[in-house]
């Protein structure tokens, strides 16, 4: 099964909208939403029935027994992650959101007051009928995004039958969740916009993807918002040997459709026509 990952570097360039359109135009029936911090794919690819939900455990975190704690503060001094809170009564407590799970506090505690506890940091969801849709939500403040992204992909792969193509909606940025989503990907599709921010972020995400030897390709969305920068992007792509799949013009109809939970594949407008051409170019690369 070939795997496509849609990334952008900069947020808001149109990853989810374009991923949904590609899913419908190409009749892809294996897909995942790896933007676990702010998942949106389910708002367009609305599942018809309920999902198999599973709690997702992150790393164990530390917990301090207040009966054993004598307020010496050694844990507070040793913690590198600002995760120990000194209470009014002098005793120490672990901030569950900030705890990194290193257990240095346990190492230095003279009273053996620190133990480990389970930490549910999110929920995975798998919808399966003729299609397989794997997604998840990460509870706020959590730092386990990489592990959850891997779990979402694993759930997708474990539930597919003989699908030949899977597409994954990625997250913005270049950090943990993006790095985790890149493993095993056959083609990364970068969605950018003609702004200086978009181009700057594109450079960084391309570098990130290539450091993992992932082939990359490019779509310029809202391409007519600034022709000069759109041309700069095309020039950059040529210099870096990145195949351009196409340009999509800014189109008011897009947000109208999205707000009705309708995929671009199901309406006729300049943007959807552009994606129609793009999908063929993309399939040639794969």
């Amino acid at each position, binding site marked *: 099964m070939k795997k496509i990952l849609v990334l952008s570097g900069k947020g808001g360039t149109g990853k989810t909208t374009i991923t949904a359109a590609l899913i419908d135009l190409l009749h892809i029936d294996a897909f995942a939403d790896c933007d676990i911090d702010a998942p949106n794919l389910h708002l367009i690819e609305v599942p018809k029935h309920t999902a198999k939900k599973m709690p997702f455990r992150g*790393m164990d975190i530390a917990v301090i027994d207040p009966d054993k704690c004598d307020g010496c503060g050694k844990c507070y001094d040793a913690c590198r992650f600002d995760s120990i809170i000194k209470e009014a009564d002098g005793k120490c407590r672990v901030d569950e959101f900030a705890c990194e799970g290193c257990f240095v506090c346990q190492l230095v505690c003279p009273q053996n007051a620190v133990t480990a506890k389970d930490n549910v940091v999110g929920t995975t969801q798998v919808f399966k009928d003729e299609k397989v849709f794997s997604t998840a939500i990460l509870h706020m403040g959590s730092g386990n995004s*990489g*592990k959850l*992204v891997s779990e979402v992909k694993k759930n997708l792969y474990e539930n597919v039958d003989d699908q030949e193509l899977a597409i994954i909606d990625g997250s913005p940025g270049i950090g*943990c969740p993006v790095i*985790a989503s890149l*493993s095993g990907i056959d083609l990364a599709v970068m969605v950018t916009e003609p702004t200086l921010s978009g181009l700057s972020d594109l450079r960084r995400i391309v570098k990130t993807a290539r*450091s993992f030897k992932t082939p990359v390709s490019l779509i310029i969305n809202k391409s007519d918002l600034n022709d000069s920068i759109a041309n700069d992007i095309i020039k950059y792509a040529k210099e870096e040997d990145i195949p351009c799949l196409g340009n999509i013009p800014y189109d008011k109809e897009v947000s109208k459709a999205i707000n009705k939970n309708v995929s671009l594949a199901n309406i006729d407008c300049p943007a959807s026509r552009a994606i129609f051409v793009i999908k063929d170019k993309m399939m040639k690369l794969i």
Partner: protein
Amino acid sequence: MKIAMATLEESMGTKLDQTFGRAVYFLFHDTENGENKFIENPARNASGGAGIKSAQTLVDEGVEALIVFRLGSNAVQVLEGANVKCFRAVDESAQVNLDKFIAGELAKLEDFHPGYHHTK
């Protein structure tokens, strides 16, 4: 010498696991006495560094050769540091892979992928 493989089940007829760091089981075959031992991979549910942990398990077991489909660069660093030779698995049972290895028919594993922290 001890030979290791990543397997899906605890039997010689099982297929090999496509991953290493998060493999379900490890098989150790001792060529001196022909014994086969299976263990559950302790790194399977590690949140990160699974490749490193799995490689450490093999090194501690005294493995000299590993038959596997793919390896991340972190696991390779550990294995190479301990002189474990890596060979490319074939999509057959553990027994077939073992027989082919002994007959000298398995190729060396040359290309590795970069570490993916928190993934493999």
